[in-house]
């Protein structure tokens, strides 16, 4: 791996060297390294690009890293990754994609991730997206995440896109059985002329299933964001969706939270707030000795933390 690839790996997966435990590193559309453990197997798909990640029932405190790096301009990479999480397992999965585009052609990575989370299994899924490079070529990331959670299963999904991605459409669909729960925390910051669209559809099918979808975003310069979130309560369940956005410059945010209750005992809440940084927040930090610009930085950093 060269210096660019190493630096990207650090940005998207906080990795300095090869990770501990199971991993699969994909670089410019090809396998760049893989490790499996006694409990976690990674198998290349035969029918289409991508991998199957198979985690044995009862696997505890293990992690899987599957970073993707694109440093060649003009590459269009599409992968299908399926995760099979065995009953009662408790694991951390770190995915992420970094694009370094110095050229003039568009680089694109579309990852289609499907999770099959077994009964009472627990997954923390962390996904970071990042783009860099001073070429004029666009950096596009369109991730699709499909989640099926079996009875009593739990998934916490943290997705972050802070910088450098020109265009993104993020689709996430989930269905939950009895007692299953899902927490999604999304953070997006767009600048320049970037566009970001997020679509969440969560089906709460099981008794006492629950979902909490939280998005925090900052739209700077002339960037545009669309946030669509739909929670369907199809049983006695609890759902909450929240979108909180800060506008700067000529940023544009369209938040469309929606709830669909198909059961008398479905309890669903949505909240959405969009606005510029409150003047009193800036003033407070300025009375502590920060300049207006420094105050703005602190407020945004805190908000996106």
């Amino acid at each position, binding site marked *: 791996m060269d210096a660019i690839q190493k630096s990207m790996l650090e940005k998207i997966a906080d990795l300095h060297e090869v990770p501990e435990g199971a991993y699969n590193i994909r670089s410019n559309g090809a396998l760049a390294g893989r490790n499996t453990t006694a409990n976690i197997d990674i198998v290349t798909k035969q029918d289409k690009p991508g991998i199957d990640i198979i985690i044995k029932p009862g696997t505890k405190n293990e992690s899987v890293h599957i970073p993707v790096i694109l440093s060649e301009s003009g590459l269009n990479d599409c992968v299908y990754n399926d995760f099979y999480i065995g009953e009662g397992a408790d694991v951390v999965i770190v995915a992420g994609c970094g694009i370094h585009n110095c050229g003039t052609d568009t680089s694109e990575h579309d990852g289609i991730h499907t999770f099959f989370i077994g009964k009472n299994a627990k997954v923390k899924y962390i996904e970071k997206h990042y783009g860099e490079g001073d070429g004029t070529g666009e950096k596009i990331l369109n991730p699709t995440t499909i989640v099926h959670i079996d009875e009593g299963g739990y998934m916490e999904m943290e997705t972050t896109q802070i910088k450098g991605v020109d265009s993104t459409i993020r689709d996430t669909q989930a269905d939950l059985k009895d007692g299953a729960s899902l927490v999604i925390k999304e953070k997006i910051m767009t600048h320049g002329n970037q566009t970001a669209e997020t679509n969440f559809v969560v089906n709460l099918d099981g008794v006492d299933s629950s979902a909490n979808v939280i998005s*925090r975003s900052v739209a700077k310069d002339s960037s545009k964001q669309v946030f669509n979130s739909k929670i369907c309560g199809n049983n006695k369940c609890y759902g909450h969706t929240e979108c*909180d956005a800060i506008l700067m410059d000529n940023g544009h945010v369209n938040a469309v939270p929606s709830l669909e209750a198909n059961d008398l005992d479905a309890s669903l809440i949505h909240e959405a707030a969009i606005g510029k940084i*409150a003047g*009193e*927040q800036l*003033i*407070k*930090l*300025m*009375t*502590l*000795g*920060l*300049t*207006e610009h420094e105050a703005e930085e*602190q*407020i945004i*950093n*805190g*908000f*996106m*933390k």
Partner: protein
Amino acid sequence: MLELKDICFNVRQDSKEKEILKNINLKIDERFVAITGPNGGGKSTLAKIIAGIEKPTSGKIILDGEDITDLSITDRANKGVSFAFQQPVRFKGLTVKDLITLASGKKITIAEACSYLSEVGLCAKDYINREVNASLSGGELKRIEIAMIIARGTKLSLFDEPEAGIDLWSFNNLIRVFESLHEKIKGSIIIISHQERILNIADKIIVLSGGEVTAVGTKDEVMPKLIESSEACSTLLDKLA
């Protein structure tokens, strides 16, 4: 020393000029200076003018001989003016430790941040990593606001109704906070307050009413007048009833 020379502050209301502050002339050099007076008398506006949040329509603000009238909020803060808001601001994402660190202006250890919180009666470990958001109560925010001023430790500290929302039990502690803050900064502490117990510790009391300074002096000079005027009010009210 802080000097206010002929400070006037007007706002436009219903296409008419309204005078909020009229020719305020004050010298503040004492340890504790309390500003009191009826609601709407101009107290908070005066504090904002000292901190640079509002610009006076006319007049000059002199800090230790330097004219700071045209300086920004940031510049004044860096020259040693601190201001605790009447209504503290909430921040999504910033933690108590973040704010205390920003206030102190340098990297501080958890132990240092905790010591500031303990001074205002907050159990530090419960609060240090809390976000300064809507989950904190008004009284908790108020204490954190005061802790930030302690962390700054500048020569001029302004508090706008620090006692509001703080329970009676902590009242004596609040006075202790002011005393120990003075030990540290050796400058002036200006407190806007309606509380007799705070007025009692003041070396100088300024009464601001209808945008004008109606009395200045020690508590022995000013307090009897304050009580008289409130008695006058109650007599009037009695008559009306």
